[in-house]
């Protein structure tokens, strides 16, 4: 494997790690809020 190819593979690996880290750092996927759902009062009705 040539030196140039090794450097390119290293860059791709680093980019992969960076993007993966960014996706994980921004937290887990959150389910969208249900549309049109009424609010439920916690601790009793008004």
């Amino acid at each position, binding site marked *: 494997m040539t030196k140039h190819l090794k450097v390119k593979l290293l860059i*791709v690996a680093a980019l992969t790690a960076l*993007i993966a880290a*960014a*996706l*994980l750092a*921004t937290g887990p*996927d959150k389910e969208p809020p249900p549309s049109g759902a009424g609010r439920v009062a916690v601790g009793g009705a008004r």
Partner: protein
Amino acid sequence: MSATSMRGPVPRWAEWAAQATMWCAIPSGIWRILFALRLPAGFTGSSDPDHVNFFFLLGYVSALTLLSEAAAFLSMGLVRSWGEIWPRWIPFLRGRRVHPLAAIIPAALGAAALMALWSGLVFGFETSDPELPHGGKLVVLYLCYLPLVAWGPLLAAVTVAYAVRRHRHG
């Protein structure tokens, strides 16, 4: 065959630009594959990738990424000898001179298509759909796809350099 066996010198900037086209699609390809590997990319609800067969999605995005890189690799032909003489493994045409227009027209059309497809990214993109990425995940998606904006202009520049060189040196 090497660059030294080409007719006419390839400008250094054209060599770099051709190399750069291959890097334009890398970040988005990586993002796509990580998305298929179920990293939290911000798609939820009906857009959640869990609704799609894991191996099908992974195969699909991998093929898409390979296709993008193969297309980008063709740019290297504009700065390599195989863009002037058909390679030996190509039947019937092997060893023959590549007609300049056979390279210039597809490359120019490709550059135009890429610019039409990706230029809008310069203005950013945003979605109000809560099932699509937003916030930090949208920023990651945007940054991964932003290099694609450069692909079209880079290819156009390399195509012009190729056309000039072929016109001068045959």
